[in-house]
């Protein structure tokens, strides 16, 4: 008996010593891309492994940030700005990610009755200038003019080339690029063998795997302060669109940064809309569209994509899909 116990003890000691492979939690702030604070939290076996993943994720995010940059051009890169400036005159060859994001945008345009529109760059630019000034609304005539150049059907994509049939149409991926980039960056992390992480792109969270002791806990803020609720998630994305932080107040009226393509002005049905679904790009696009849709049409859209939703209205209690409630709890 003693011998057996001794042997067992030896085996256990060896195993305890080899336990250096236990995963540890690491967090790192990533470069600021898509105008948001980005952060990666992951469980890795070593700091070097985590750094390698964080660097690769940063690289992918930067690459996509440049590709979908509305304001700047970069050497040797045909990006959104290049396309906006030249596709009205001649066909422009674009990157595969550009095509993939445009395909997503087109599909969501159809599905959301035009509420998610990536072809209204002129309109969003008008509003962006006003948000920066913070004290005036865009000129009504200019808005009407911009609204007449927002038809995605005038954007031709063939054989990897983009051409604008309407030379005054402009693309703006502001509402969907962040989510798409999050999904791609998550794929990069997974390809490096990182299985358990949270990638937070300011209100746009992609999670994979879990913590050693349970699923990831994602808090959802209440516009009036505090945390409204939280969800437990293992693989998927949580994206919130809200109007209470980005935007401006003019003459006592709140104008949020999400513009309804039908009215040409800030959508104000909801204070925030949170979407949970499998793909971060889809979640981002859906949250923008749902922000402009009423509950009935919103529920239909969410159901079509199997997404779960939490709506926080300006007045009254939050509304949630049944499936959303299933993610809640633990808090």
């Amino acid at each position, binding site marked *: 008996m003693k011998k057996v116990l001794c042997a067992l003890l030896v085996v256990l000691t060896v195993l305890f010593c080899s336990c250096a492979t236990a995963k540890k939690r690491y967090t790192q*702030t990533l470069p*600021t891309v898509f*105008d*948001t*604070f980005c*952060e990666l*939290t992951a469980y890795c076996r070593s700091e070097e492994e985590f750094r390698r993943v964080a660097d690769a994720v940063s690289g992918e995010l930067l690459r996509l940030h440049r590709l979908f940059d509305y304001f700047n051009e970069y050497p040797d890169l045909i990006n959104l700005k290049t396309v906006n400036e030249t596709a009205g005159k001649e066909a422009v060859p674009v990157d595969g990610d550009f095509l993939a994001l445009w395909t997503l945008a087109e599909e969501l345009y159809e599905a959301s009755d035009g509420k998610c529109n990536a072809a209204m760059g002129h309109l969003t630019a008008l509003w962006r200038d006003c*948000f*920066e000034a*913070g004290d005036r609304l865009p000129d009504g005539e200019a808005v009407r003019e911009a609204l007449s150049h927002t038809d995605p059907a005038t954007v031709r994509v063939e054989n990897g080339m983009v051409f604008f049939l309407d030379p005054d149409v402009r693309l703006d991926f502001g509402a969907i690029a962040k989510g798409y980039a999050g999904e791609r960056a998550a794929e990069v992390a997974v390809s490096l063998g990182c299985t358990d992480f*949270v990638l*937070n792109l*300011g*209100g*746009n*969270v992609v*999670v994979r795997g879990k*913590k050693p002791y349970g699923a*990831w*806990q*994602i*808090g*959802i*803020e*209440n*516009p*009036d*302060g*505090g*945390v*409204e609720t*939280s969800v437990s998630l293992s693989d998927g994305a*949580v*994206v*919130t669109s*809200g109007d*209470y*932080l*980005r935007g401006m107040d003019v003459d006592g009226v709140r104008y949020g940064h999400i513009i309804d393509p039908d009215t040409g002005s800030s959508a104000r049905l909801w204070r*925030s809309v*949170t979407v949970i679904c499998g793909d971060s790009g889809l979640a981002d696009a859906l949250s923008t569209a749902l922000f402009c849709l009423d509950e009935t049409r919103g529920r239909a859209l969410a159901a079509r994509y199997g997404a779960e939703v939490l709506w926080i209205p300006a007045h009254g209690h939050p509304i949630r899909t049944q499936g959303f409630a299933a993610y809640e709890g633990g*808090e």
Partner: protein
Amino acid sequence: MKKNDLFLLLGVLLAAFLLFLGLRLFSGNGEAVEITVTGDVLGVYPLSEDRIIPVADCAEVRIEGGRVHMAFSDCPNQICVRHAPIARVGQTIVCLPNGIAVRILGDGGFDAVVG
């Protein structure tokens, strides 16, 4: 089966319930706030003491009654100042133009917060 077995079972269930209540009372709210400027940690301050923290001549973070908010910032968009006070682990207030991140630290809480 002895009477003690039943007492043990009930005792454990009671203890678990009390532990649950206790944890619920004390968990969630953070212990400290960490302020970073362009990635460098400026400092970590306990939430238990009220405090005014100037940040790089361009902003001011305040701890009041266990909650943290950005009292002032010279940034153009004022998103950080508009953010409601934070107290729960994982919550952050970010001022991108000035590169400031204010984050609640502590055990448990959230791995990320959206909103």
